[in-house]
């Protein structure tokens, strides 16, 4: 499991890179595919605290993970989005399939 991945009881936390482009999105997708083979992942929390840029490849990667977890009745949660990332989430329509939470503590409380 990559160093930016952490398994919690109820969710997988992914700390996203500074720039979420095609290169980084592919890397996360591959790591998820390996992890999903032997771990039961129902919910994913994406932490944007380090992320300063995301393009449509990043959006595609998030939609791909959404398809995987929603098939299991799970959800995608996001924390620490800045203004720039929020704009991309708005324009892409991604906000319709993700739920924003304040921080990791909120995620621990609210995800069951």
């Amino acid at each position, binding site marked *: 499991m990559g160093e930016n991945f952490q398994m919690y009881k109820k969710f997988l936390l992914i700390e996203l890179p500074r*720039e979420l*482009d*095609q*290169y980084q*999105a*592919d890397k996360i*997708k591959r790591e998820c595919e390996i992890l999903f083979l032997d771990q039961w992942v129902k919910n994913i929390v994406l932490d944007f605290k380090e992320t*300063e*840029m*995301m*393009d*449509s*490849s990043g*959006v*595609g*990667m998030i*939609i*791909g993970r959404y398809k995987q977890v929603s098939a299991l009745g799970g959800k995608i949660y996001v924390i620490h989005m800045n*203004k*720039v990332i929020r*704009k*991309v989430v708005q*324009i*892409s329509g991604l906000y319709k399939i993700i739920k924003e939470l304040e921080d990791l503590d909120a995620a621990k409380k609210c995800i069951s």
Partner: protein
Amino acid sequence: MMTTNQVTVEFVSNPENEKLARVMISAFSTILDPTLEEMADMKTAVSEAVTNAIIHGYEKKRGMIRMELQRKNRTVIVKIADKGEGIENIEKAMEPLFTTKPDQERTGMGFSFMEAFMDELDVVSKVGEGTTVTMKRTIPKREQYRK
């Protein structure tokens, strides 16, 4: 209008170079003192254009991508050109959510993002010869003490 500054770079169609392209536009535009948001917009648009050249233009092959940066007063003009496959139907390709590669988690949002994040977008393409994307963005002068 006379060109104030111009830089051209060429790089191979390796996804690693998307970052390089973003650093290029960022360094080139710094003199205009853009806001963080304006800078992120331009970087995202460039990222989309270079991704398209790599994924669609050259697919699994390797080829060269030419990035031309121009500045006319406060307008940044960026041209991304490949000599790849070209686009058969530009109108269709520019439709939101249209993609030829849905299986690879491509969203079909590339051109929409370029349009949303830049002031102007122009796409010229010929099948078998390649694609050139030209984008413009004007960075307004900021008041010295504006917050």
